[in-house]
């Protein structure tokens, strides 16, 4: 109890650091929740199309122009090649359709007249090409069997007006899951920074060579004292994890009561244990209290940036992600990201997450071994 009491006293002296990192989590995590755009509505974008018509605007030609006009933004530019090329270059227009002279007549005669186009080559122009191609394909099919132009136009419009019905079977709360993922990703920074800072500070006091000498010569078993210290640190880690989990229930309660919520809890718990072993390793390695701040910045900030705690993983360059593979945070964040789209929970779908958890536990074991080596080396005074 002597060690635990002293641990609590030193912890109490550093409570502001814990509060600070918790405020970071609520502040930045909460702020992102308010501003993140995870809209589920879809509005099709319309490409900017210019139509240069050399035919008479009647019959099938008129209908083609109407179809394109209904499904795009028609752009009016000067009908000269220089102006059209400038328009394409400056993206004033995505696609230019040149309808040749006698197009309507030639089409009805089954000559399959050629329509020339110019495009910017971007995704908007692809969409414009899809519109044109769709109309011509449908028109070609009916033209082979229908000679009457009015009947043909009627059939084409009837076909084109049919829309596929899409039923969304997913019941995922994508908005809530995105928020939860961001919260737990950001929590990796707060957990790591807080644990490394506090545990290093406390260990640097207890493991100070002068204090250690005084402790070794006392009548209390030194191993027992070390065990008490380890238990105190672990208890602190669990309490910190508990506080951050409780906060997540307050901020994103709906998600936390779902299956994904349980996985977020397990994943963050395993990461917290791993962060504790990292903190214990560094705490045994570093005895200079003034260096702790710098170490926290390098380890917590560094790994959070590299692994995608602040910036979405998909934005990170491949080189950075390769480096991130050597950090536990990467596997933790990777699992959180997987949870965003995970709907069916079975061994097969959960396999990547379970693998990530095993990797994090592997990191923990490595840090425990390293801590033991460092600790034993330091104990050898003579």
């Amino acid at each position: 109890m002597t060690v635990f009491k002293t641990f609590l006293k030193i912890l109490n002296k550093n409570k502001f650091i814990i509060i600070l990192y918790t405020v970071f989590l609520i502040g930045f995590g909460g702020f992102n929740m308010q501003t993140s755009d995870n809209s589920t509505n879809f509005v099709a974008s319309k490409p900017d199309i210019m139509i240069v018509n050399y035919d008479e605007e009647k019959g099938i030609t008129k209908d083609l122009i109407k179809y394109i006009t209904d499904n795009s933004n028609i752009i009016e530019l000067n009908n000269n090649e220089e102006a059209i090329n400038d328009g394409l270059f400056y993206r004033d227009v995505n696609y230019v359709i040149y309808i040749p002279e006698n197009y309507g007549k030639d089409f009805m005669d089954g000559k399959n007249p050629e329509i020339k186009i110019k495009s910017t080559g971007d995704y908007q122009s692809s969409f414009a090409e899809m519109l044109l191609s769709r109309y011509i394909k449908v028109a070609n099919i009916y033209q082979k069997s229908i000679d009457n132009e009015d009947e043909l136009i009627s059939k084409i419009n009837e076909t084109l007006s049919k829309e596929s019905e899409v039923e969304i079977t997913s019941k995922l709360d994508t908005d809530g899951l995105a928020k939860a993922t961001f919260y737990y990703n950001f929590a990796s920074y707060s957990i790591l920074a807080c644990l490394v800072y506090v545990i290093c500070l406390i260990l640097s006091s207890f493991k100070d060579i002068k204090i250690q000498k005084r402790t070794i010569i006392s009548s209390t078993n030194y191993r027992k004292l070390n065990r008490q210290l380890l238990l105190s640190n672990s208890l602190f880690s669990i309490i910190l994890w508990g506080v951050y989990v409780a906060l997540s229930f307050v901020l994103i309660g709906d998600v936390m009561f779902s299956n994904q919520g349980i996985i977020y809890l397990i994943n963050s718990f395993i990461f917290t244990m791993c962060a504790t072993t990292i903190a214990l390793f560094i705490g045994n390695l570093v005895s200079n209290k003034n260096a702790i701040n710098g170490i926290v910045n390098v380890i917590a900030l560094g790994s959070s940036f590299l692994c995608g705690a602040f910036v979405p993983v998909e934005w990170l360059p491949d080189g950075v992600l390769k480096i991130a593979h050597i950090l536990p945070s990467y596997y933790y964040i990777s699992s959180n990201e997987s949870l965003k789209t995970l709907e069916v929970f079975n061994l097969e779908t959960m396999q990547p997450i379970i693998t990530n958890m095993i990797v994090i536990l592997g990191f923990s074991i490595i840090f425990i071994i390293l801590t033991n080596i460092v600790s034993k080396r330091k104990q050898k005074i003579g």
Partner: protein
Amino acid sequence: MKNIIEVKNLTKKYKELKAVDDLSFEVHEGEILGLLGPNGSGKSTTINCLLSLLNYSNGSIKIFGKEMKPDSYDLKSKIGVVFQEVSVFDELTVYENIDYFCGLYISDKETKKKYIEDAISLVGLEDFKKFYPKKLSGGLLRRLNIACGIAHKPKLIFLDEPTVAVDPQSRNNILDGIKKLRDDGATIVYTTHYMEEVEILCDRVIILDKGKILAAGTTDELKELAKIEEKISIEVNDLETKYIDKIKELKNVDDVKYNGNILLITYKKGKNNLVEIMEYLKENRIKYNKIFSERPTLNDVFLELTGKELRD
């Protein structure tokens, strides 16, 4: 007399270097033993071996009649150590620091509380209980360091230079505290570089150098070891060389030095040296202002035994 510490043929080697070389000594119950020696003489190594902080190459150490081992927790409970460096938690107050270190030995709450108060009172830190170490002066820090080492009322106390860099007031307070500990029945092993402290405190002294005991005994016994018996210094103006040569030929005179206007005469043995030199000055009508006679100090003995060359 009961021996609290018995050291026999203790040897500690660092590769080829013998830091402690076949050391044997005892510490008797209730005494203050002074451990003297220049830097690197093996004092700290000896104490670290006694406390099982270091493994030793050869010999045996018995404390309270039992062999001292790293897991001798029953023996450790009777031992208190005050290291030279202040070893306290910066994050804890004076009271909390003593509470922690006392708590490593005493589990009973009430007993511990009483012991902490006693320790605070012994070192005179009653007004600083809630102070953090960074707010304490050097002297107060030293006193806190002592309180942390002795709060559990040990029967054997090791004090390693506890008064280094301390003002005279704090030093007196610390020395009074140490005497009180001895009077309360504790046996003390005291390491210091201050000879006057040894003369005031220690019942016996061991002088170490290069890992070996050069001399051991009471302060008076050690002074007997000095080649000189008496030092007489006389303030004389413009003394002619012929008189200096004549003084050198006087009975028992070992050496004569004349620097500035101070004539320093050292005597090997004999009595009435002061009377004889005064008669000689009178006969030769040599006028003098002041004259002092002093016995050799422990410092003289120490320097004579360990040499005057500088140590690291």
